[in-house]
């Protein structure tokens, strides 16, 4: 079975043709670098995305603090993760990289601040 994917690892956006047996990758063509192969395997077997959003702060100079997951999380959990992110209220100062929430929804990903807020 051949599946067409757009590699999202970099702005080139290689058009990949991925040969699979339904659940595993057999061969990838169309990639300009090794990242394309890794991406195709991940995308076919367990698609994941970095989630970025904002959280509401209280008493800080920045009203909305931008946050990201430290590593990609399962695509199917994006919405549920957003619901968790929306519950958070931050009142203490943070630096870019400060962990806001550990192990978001048991994904192994931490939610981290991407900007300083004092």
């Amino acid at each position: 079975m051949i599946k067409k994917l757009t590699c999202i690892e970099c702005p080139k956006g290689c058009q990949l043709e991925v040969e699979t047996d339904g659940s595993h990758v057999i061969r990838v063509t169309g990639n300009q670098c090794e990242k394309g192969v890794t991406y195709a395997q991940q995308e076919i077997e367990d698609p994941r995305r970095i989630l970025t959003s904002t959280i509401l702060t209280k008493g800080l100079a920045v009203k909305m603090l931008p946050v990201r997951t430290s590593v990609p999380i399962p695509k199917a959990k994006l919405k549920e993760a957003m619901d968790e992110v929306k519950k958070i209220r931050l009142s203490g100062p943070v630096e870019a990289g400060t962990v806001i929430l550990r192990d978001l929804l048991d994904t192994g990903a931490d939610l981290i601040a991407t900007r300083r807020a004092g």
Partner: protein
Amino acid sequence: MESRELVIVGAGPAGMAAALSAYRKGIKDILLLERDQYLGGILNQCIHPGFGLHHFKEDLTGPEYADRFIKEIEGIKGIEVSLKSFVVHLTGNKVLTYLKPGKLAEVKAKALIMATGCRERTREMVHIPGTRPAGIYPAGLAQKMINIEGWLPGKEVVIVGSGDIGLIMARRFTLEGARVKAVVEIQKESRGLIRNVAQCIEDFEIPLYFLHRILRIYGQDRVEKVTVENIETKESFDITCDTVLISVGLIPENDLVEMAGVELDKATNCPRSVEPIPGIFICGNAYKVYDLVDWVTRDSEKAGKMAAEYIKGLK
């Protein structure tokens, strides 16, 4: 009048890279003017990843990319940052007038770097007929409303144009619980990066109509619906919505250099060279509209170096 070796207007990615590069080339008397209350410019509202793959060999979000430069600038005495400082006048012999809280200041620069970025093209520029209700926003303004101000501008959204900001905002609205009912693009392919079509549109099964345009916007107080037309078959259909985002490109912001006597390209609003007046340099999105911030950084570092060499040549 105050005088400086180098004045830089705008502390987004271009202005920050130019300042650091000029400093490294030996210029220690730099004034960096920024109209916002923070350094970082548009990067602060670009909370999504995809920045820095070339420059830092890492996948960073906009705020993280900005943070690296902000930290460096804050540690340097020779770069004085002036926030909430809005330049209102510029002359060809490099005298700037700017407003900051409580005062109107003037400064004369030996060299000047303009890193003033872009503004968004609006509904009026693409001539969409209809009423003028609330709920029509340039996509980047909607991005600022959500990511900086924490307001969700609408619940049912149609996006006009498939530039990167529109695609990114389609995903952002969806994640925030709004329904993006269509992205309407008059061309036969996206103007944005193809990976943004994949991860912002296809990931969320948002309908993307190529070779379609908005015929009319309806609504009295608030947007109620739009009519969309297939430009080939001329068939049309309505989409009910409360919000229309306009994502149809950017225009370099060059009013100040124009005021100083620089002639701009009529079609693009770009200057015809990086140094249109000796000692006045233009970099970043004010020079030309970039796809990637990494290239803004690279080219703005060159502009900073050129300004440093110009100043040294005067001595």
